[in-house]
Every structure is written in structure tokens, then in C-alpha cells.
């Protein structure tokens, strides 16, 4: 699907663009983190322990305080330091859960939602866009009016409304890494937030469809499509062999960039409390808000992870656009 020339220009772009390479590296590490969360997380992200709550990250904290504790059946006053420890390098939350482990697991939710919502949107959006653009006429008018209607709602409002309709559907699947016995003491099941995925797909397909339609219209007017028609190729054949392959690059570039938007929408929804799982960045940010004055890291850490992921995706998107889409070259030769 990718021609030699495209590959060369991609390679050149990657070589010449160190910033983008950093972006790709960031994104890849996030992906690895999501896939191997049970292996990489030092603790069970749901493991609560009130004795070690509100521990700051490594190199922070260090004030000493006196507390009364029951030790070996006796009540004693002990001097404790709340300095960050290597065991919880990013600190602990109000229930003593390890922030690093929670954040690593949170990547899973974001990435599962982002990829599955984008997959659904790509299939639906590309199909609608291709049909609409290629066949034009009445089919096109009807489909595009429908697209206009969806676009009239802000993305976040319509996803929220969809959540209101669908309720909170989630699917729990066994975590293969835990099931295979590779690691123990980690949650045995992963939660897939179906509602959020569907709700987000219900807006994102429209963005894809609009671009796909434009590309289909452009490709349809190329002379090689006319040539295929004079050769007697069927409409579906033409779409499959000529229109789709020549439209797919800009669609994929857009899809890459929109994955970033999806991650932001997903975290916003979890932040508002509609995620369906508690292992998510948005949820942790919201939970940490109540302790801003005392435990600043609770909201800060997951947010930083979101920013790093989204920056990575945006850099990759820019790179793909520069390398693959000659229409939007950055000036110069």
C-alpha cells in the first residue's frame, strides 16, 4: 500500500526531524506501557493501604511529624518522615495506592478507548465518505445533511448525551499477562469502557467521513478512474482498487491527529466521572483535586502523562502529514 517513494520521503522526514522522532519515541513508550502494564507496574494499582497514604514522590517531602500508632499492641508516639521512597517513586494517593502503578494502568484505558473508537470511526467514516463522494447526487445530499446534524453538536455534549442513553456499559476481559501466570498480584481482569468508546465513535466517524468524501470526490475526477470506467470496471471495483487506495493517506493522517482529540475527550469524560472504570487518568485527576493543597502530585502526574501521550501523537501526525501529504508541505524544497 505504501509506495517506495512514500517510504523514502517518510525515512527522510524521520531522519531530518529529530523533534518528530522524539514524539514517535514518546508514543511508542506509552503504547508499551499500556500493553505491558501488569509487568511494568510495581504494585497492584487497586491495592489500598491507609498506613502509607499521601506519600509524596521520590525526592519530595521530608518533613517529620509525630503520630500515634498501635505497634505490637501498644500505643506509641513515633516520629515519621513523609519523604518519598523508591517503593512509590511517584507517591501514593489518599488511599495509599501507588500513583505510578495507577498511571501505568491508566494508559491502558486511554489507549484501548482511543484505538477502538478510531477503528470503529475509520470503518464507518470511510465507508460513508467513499459512498457519499463517489456516488454523489441524492445519496450524498442525505448523508451530508446527516453529517451536518451531528456536527451541529459540540463533540463533548453529544458524547455525554450518548452516555445518558446507553448507560454505563463495560466489558471485563481477563488480562492475558496475568492469566498466563507471568505476573501475580495484579488485577486479573481489564475493564473495557464500551459506552465511552461508542459515544466517542458517534462523533469521530463524522470527521473521518468528511475527509474521506473530499478525497473520494478528488480521486473520482482523476483520469485514471475514467480510464477504469472505460475498461468496464464496476463501481465497487473502482472504489476498492483506485479511489480508496488513493484516498487512504490523508484519511490515516487525519485519524492519527484525531486520536489525540479522542484521548482528550476520553480523559474529560473520566474526569467528569463517566468512565466506567476507576483506572483512568481523568478519574485520578478528578480524585486528586480534593487534595490539591496537600498532595499536589495526585492530579499532576496523570495529567503529565496525558500531555506526553498527546504531544507524541501530535508530533507523529505532523510528521506523517509532512511526509505523506504533498499538499501541506512546509515551504521550501
Amino acid at each position: 500500500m505504501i509506495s517506495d517513494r512514500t517510504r523514502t520521503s517518510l525515512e527522510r522526514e524521520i531522519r531530518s526531524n529529530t523533534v518528530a522522532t522524539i514524539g514517535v519515541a514518546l508514543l511508542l513508550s506509552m503504547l508499551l506501557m499500556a500493553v505491558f502494564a501488569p509487568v511494568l507496574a510495581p504494585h497492584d494499582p487497586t491495592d489500598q493501604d491507609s498506613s502509607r497514604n499521601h506519600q509524596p514522590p521520590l525526592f519530595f517531602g521530608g518533613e517529620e511529624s509525630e503520630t500515634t500508632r498501635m505497634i505490637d499492641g501498644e500505643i506509641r508516639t513515633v516520629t515519621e518522615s513523609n519523604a518519598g521512597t523508591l517503593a512509590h517513586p511517584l507517591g501514593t494517593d489518599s488511599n495509599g495506592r501507588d500513583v505510578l502503578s495507577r498511571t501505568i494502568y491508566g494508559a491502558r484505558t486511554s489507549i484501548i478507548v482511543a484505538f477502538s473508537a478510531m477503528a470503529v470511526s475509520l470503518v464507518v467514516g470511510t465507508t460513508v465518505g467513499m459512498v457519499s463522494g463517489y456516488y454523489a447526487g441524492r445519496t450524498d445530499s442525505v448523508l451530508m445533511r446527516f453529517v451536518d446534524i451531528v456536527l451541529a453538536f459540540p463533540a463533548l455534549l453529544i458524547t455525554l448525551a450518548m452516555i445518558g442513553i446507553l448507560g454505563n456499559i463495560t466489558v471485563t476481559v481477563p488480562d492475558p499477562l496475568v492469566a498466563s501466570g507471568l505476573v501475580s498480584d495484579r488485577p486479573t481482569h481489564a475493564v473495557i469502557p464500551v459506552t465511552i468508546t461508542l459515544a466517542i465513535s458517534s462523533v469521530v466517524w463524522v470527521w473521518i467521513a468528511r475527509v474521506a468524501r473530499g478525497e473520494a470526490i478528488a480521486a473520482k475526477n482523476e483520469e485514471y478512474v475514467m480510464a477504469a470506467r472505460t475498461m468496464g470496471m464496476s463501481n465497487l471495483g473502482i472504489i476498492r482498487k483506485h479511489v480508496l487506495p488513493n484516498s487512504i493517506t490523508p484519511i490515516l493522517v487525519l485519524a492519527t491527529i484525531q486520536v489525540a482529540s479522542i484521548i482528550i475527550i476520553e480523559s474529560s469524560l473520566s474526569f467528569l466521572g463517566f468512565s466506567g472504570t476507576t483506572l483512568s487518568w481523568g478519574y485520578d485527576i478528578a480524585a486528586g483535586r480534593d487534595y490539591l493543597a496537600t498532595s499536589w502530585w495526585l492530579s499532576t502526574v496523570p495529567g503529565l502523562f496525558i500531555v506526553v501521550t498527546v504531544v507524541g501523537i501530535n508530533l507523529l501526525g505532523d510528521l506523517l502529514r509532512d511526509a505523506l501529504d504533498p499538499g501541506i508541505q512546509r515551504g521550501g524544497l
Partner: protein
Amino acid sequence: MKDELVFLGRRLAQGVVVVWGVVTTVFLFRVISPTNPAQLMAPDDATPELIQQIEQDLGLTEPVLNQYVYYLSGVLQGDLGFSYMTNTPVLRRIMFALPGTLELAAAALVFAVLASIPLGILSAMYRGSRIDSTSNLVSLGGVSTPNFWLAIMMVLLVSVQLGVLPTSGRPIGLVDALTLLVFQADPNGLTSWVAHMILPTIALGTYFMALLFRLTRNGVLEELGKEYVLAARGKGLPESLLMYRYVLRNSLTPVVTVTGLQLGGLIGGSVVVESVFAWPGLGTLFIRSLNVSDWPMMQGILILVGAGYVLTNITVDFVNAKLNPQVELA
């Protein structure tokens, strides 16, 4: 004049179709939503008969088509129904919450436009300079940061650490603040308004600032490579005039379009930002209604926002067509 009427007529006709679609979609939302409003409204110990009675009162026992016709004719007369929870007219509640959101969105838009366009022009003119690389980095951060997290971080830094700006609520609206200033010469209202606006405005506007910056920069760069810019240089046009009349004016068209169209996005974004700052606006109202399945309220907000978006769209197209001689009105 005829061209303009035809253009407006055509776009309004399309707009009416879209708004009708919006109303219909929103109606369907309520129909397919699994919650039974009668159950919500009835007291906990209500008998099935009572619930049935409430259903009858709400018209829920009617055929769906009849309900649709009632709802549509209600909307046409400006009646968006009654809230399930408070039993007050939806429209009145929305009108009460609307100014907060509008003020916030407008302030964010102004902030985004004022900060992004000059920076975009400078960046493009001095491509590769320190200004350019710094602005690019900032804009990358801007499009990559969720607004609610940015809001929390600002609260953390500005209010918790420095203790300077208020972090929640909207004690006074702009109209009241101005009234106070004009009629009672009391500037406190306005100061309070400004103080409460600053953080939400930045939180909401940063993403659009970054977006508009990128658009402006790319637009100016593209314009600089056009042959007519070369031709204008060839005829000896002063460089400053050339930058203004040839490069800037032409590159702003897409910026204007996006600015208009992003109003919808600003309303959407304000849902989360309002929630962080306990801002009494449409977003807060929507979330509260969603939590209790108050469908008439959500429907009302969605219809209002949708219709507003359609109208903005038409206005932007019209303004663009008037500004850009290449776009034919008819």
C-alpha cells in the same frame, strides 16, 4: 442585493433542515433512553398506579409519533417543556445559565485571537528564529493539554501556591458588574468579575489559541510563497504594505472561518472547565441534568447549542463571502 437574499435564503433553508434534524435527534435521544421519567419524578414509595398516572400526565402513554408532533410544535413556539426534576420551564433555566457560558466563551475567544494572530505572523515572518521555535513549542503544548488539567494546574500554582486569584464561582455577571459601575460608580463588581474570569478564560482559550496560531502561521507562510507576492515585489511595492495587503489579509480568511466555527467547540469545552471552576453555566446545568436523567433539560440545551452553531455557521459563510471576492454569493 438579490444575490445576498438568494444566498441567505439558500443557507437558511439548509439551516432549517439541520435544526429540524437536531430537534428530531434530540427527541429520539429521550425516546430510546432507558430511564423512565415517571419513576424519577414519583416519590420513592409511589404505587404503580401513581407512576402510571404521572406517565399519562407527561403524555408518555401516547404513540411516539404523537409525542414527536407535540414536541416539535412546542419547540416551534419556543416551548422546550418542563424539567423533570424541578418542574420549572426548561427555557427559563437555560436563559438563566446562558450568560455565564457566553461570557466565558467570548472571553476565551478574544483571548485566543489576540494572543495567537500576532504571534503567528511573527513566527511565519521570522521562520526558524527563536520566536518561531518557542511559539511552536508552546502551541504544541497548547493543543496537547486537556483544558481541565490546565485549569487544575493553574489553580494549584496561582491560587494554592500564590494565593492570588479566586478559583471558583461566578458571583456577578458582566451586565450587573457594568450596571454597578455606571449607575453606582462602584468598580468592585467589575474587579470581581475580571478576577473570577481570568483562570477559566485561560483554561478554555489556550487550546484555541494554539490552534489559531498554527493556522495563522501556516496561512502566512503559504501566502508568502504565492506568485502574486513575487509579482508585487517585482513592481516595487513597499514591503510593509505588501505584508499587510497581500499576505496578511489573504491568509486571515481561513482563520476567520475557524474562529467562527470553533464557537461550538468552546461551548463543549466549557462543560469541563465550568465543572472545575464551579461556574454556573450551561455546562454545569447539562452535567447536573445528565446525572439525574433530566432529559427535557438536556434536550433544551442541545437544541439551543445546535441552533446557535447553525446560525454562526451561516453568519461566518456570509461574512466570508462578503470579505472574499472570490466566493460567489449566489
